[in-house]
């Protein structure tokens, strides 16, 4: 998390749970980032992170540059240093 802050990248978690569920979860874990509610999986679909036939969400990470373009995308949950390497390479 400190790495993200150091690089001025704002991370968000995204999943289909309603915002109220997210609020409870975030409060319980004192998560250092905001969770976004995607109840219809519209965002997941747009970012190709939804499984076919409504089978849920696949762990997927994207880094988006301030030009509005994808800088990095990967399945799974790579660590912050992996994602940020790609940010560094764009500088």
């Amino acid at each position, binding site marked *: 998390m400190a790495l*993200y802050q150091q*690089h*001025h*990248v*704002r*991370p*968000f*978690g*995204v*999943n*289909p*749970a309603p*915002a109220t*569920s*997210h*609020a409870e*979860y*975030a409060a319980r874990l004192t*998560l250092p980032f*905001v*969770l*976004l*509610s*995607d109840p219809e999986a*519209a*965002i*997941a679909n*747009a*970012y*190709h*992170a939804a*499984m*076919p036939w409504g089978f*849920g*969400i*696949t*762990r*997927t*990470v*994207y*880094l*988006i*540059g*301030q*030009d*509005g*373009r*994808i*800088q*990095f*995308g*990967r*399945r799974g*949950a790579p660590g912050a240093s992996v*994602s940020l390497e*790609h*940010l560094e390479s764009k500088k």
Partner: protein
Amino acid sequence: MANLLKPGDTAPDFAATGSDGHTYRLSDLLAESPVLLLFYPGNNTPG
């Protein structure tokens, strides 16, 4: 499953409600800083 969006692809804009009750729009966020999106299956899942 569809392939990942590729580097250089336009990131689809969206607006969503956050766990803090605010509504976030990607295009507004990008005006401030790069954004990292972490899609995951559900709360209380490992990883």
